[in-house]
């Protein structure tokens, strides 16, 4: 026989446990949603060089700040609780202060976990983000001026950013020197964004996931296919017929209209 006292006690115990488990589950669910939201790193926050992809980073980084302490230029900082970047994780803001791309990469060496990839030994291979010339309407070079600051400060000048001459339609007689970023070279250090002379930078370092397009897997570039096949894969190209006056030739490859050799 179970006494009514025992039954009441057991009842109260079970209710208390149920209350606790429900409360804890509610908290954990809330925490899960919060953690999920914290996955999305603000686009102005850049991770240190060698950082593994964001989702794994948040599972591997123990928020110890050793990378922050070993950064010789005090570029990295840990996120405080009210910031959008996940609490306690290291980041930098390129517009405020960009990565100096130390050759010995002390931040990666300092990391005790797998959050910063130790296999990164050449800083030029780091991909903290990708610089994107995001506003052509305000970029001075797009207006025909020779600002060139982003190009000149780039640690991989003429590799990561090149200046491509283009016709200036406005004046009709000058050239535009368009800064073009190359994703196979740009490390995302942010020097260009930091140096941009505009009030709001026209060139910005964005997370690679945001900055890069992706070609459909089925896509083929016909000229590359033609090159690798050694011939056209569709209708063969026919020689273009020019109807030029006597004594004139046209060089398709670049020289244009040329007179007869004399």
């Amino acid at each position, binding site marked *: 026989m179970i006494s009514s006292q025992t039954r009441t006690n057991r009842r109260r115990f079970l209710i208390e446990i149920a209350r606790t488990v429900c409360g804890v589950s509610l908290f954990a669910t809330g925490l899960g949603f919060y*953690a999920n939201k914290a996955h999305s790193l603000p686009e102005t926050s850049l991770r240190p060089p060698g950082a593994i992809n964001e989702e794994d980073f948040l599972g591997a980084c*123990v928020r110890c700040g*050793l990378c922050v302490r070993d950064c010789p230029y005090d570029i990295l900082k840990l996120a405080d609780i009210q910031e959008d970047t996940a609490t306690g994780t290291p980041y930098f803001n390129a517009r405020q202060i960009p990565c100096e791309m130390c050759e010995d990469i002390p931040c990666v060496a300092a990391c005790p976990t*797998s959050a910063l990839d130790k296999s990164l030994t050449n800083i030029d291979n780091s991909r903290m983000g990708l610089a994107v010339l995001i506003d052509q309407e305000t970029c001075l070079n797009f207006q025909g001026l020779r600002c060139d600051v982003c190009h000149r400060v780039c640690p991989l000048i003429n590799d990561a950013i090149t200046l491509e001459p283009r016709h200036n339609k406005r004046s009709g007689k000058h050239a535009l020197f368009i800064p073009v970023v190359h994703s196979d070279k740009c490390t995302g250090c942010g020097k260009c964004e930091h140096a941009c002379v505009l009030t709001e930078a026209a060139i910005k370092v964005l997370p690679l996931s945001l900055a890069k397009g992706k070609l459909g897997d089925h896509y083929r570039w016909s000229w590359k296919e033609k090159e690798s096949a050694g011939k056209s894969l569709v209708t063969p190209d026919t020689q273009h017929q020019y109807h030029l006056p006597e004594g004139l030739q046209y060089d398709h490859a670049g020289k244009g209209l040329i007179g007869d050799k004399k």
Partner: protein
Amino acid sequence: MSDATEHSVSSRSLFDRYKWLVARRFSQLFILSLFLLGPVSNNWIVTGNLSSSLTLNVLPLTDPFLLIQSFIAQQDIAETALLGAAIVIVFYIIIGGRVYCSWVCPLNIATDIAAWLRLKLNIKTSSLFHKTTRYWLFLAILIMTFISGTLAWELVNPVSLVQRGIIFSLYLSAGVFFFILFFDLFISREAWCGHLCPVGVFYHLVGKFSLVRISAYHRDDCDRCNDCFTVCPEEQVIKPALFGKLKNIDPVILDGNCTNCGRCIDVCDRNVFKFTHRFNKKELLKSPGDQ
């Protein structure tokens, strides 16, 4: 329970009554100041924070509970962190698991202040939380870590928020110290360290095997004044050791939740308690004629 620490005028010296408390406070502040020495005076004896650190450029230490969470989050465990965590675990297995709580964790200062003010101001609000809450929370956090694949708990963990906040001048994070203090003081008794903290649960598990323990060595002398129960942050751990003689329970406190804080040694006017090791099951029997 009355304000037991003041119920009788003690004949013992101030040193005897506060030595372990002062030693603990010193230890907590000393560890924090080692971390602060770098940013303040550019002497980098210890770098990092309590989550992971490097001492004198050679000794790596890593919070083992964090590394376990990282493992559960299906991340690769780096060698440095693994070595650091192993050193920490061995240290606490020797010195007492929850020694982290009472001798290292800066939040202990907040909860100690809250407990002291509760006695002084005679605040009697009971606990909002069932005593098993922390174990459920511990479990829930591990599950959430597995599901999310991230160190979700670290986004809100007051223990790391406060120490990191102090060491890295993150003012809002450091301010969580006061949140815990006032929560413990006004809202729920011994809420953080005694009922909620999952970090404490982890070190409690380590403490189940730890060598240094407190023993009610002189338990025959106990006059049941309750002073030790009043000051103990985990008072349930004392009872079996202190009153278990008739049930043949050894006087050494083996409960992993004993934080080795030594407050019971400080407050006991009958010198019942002392530090010893877990295998010392001896007790000092009452000498005949002693009254």
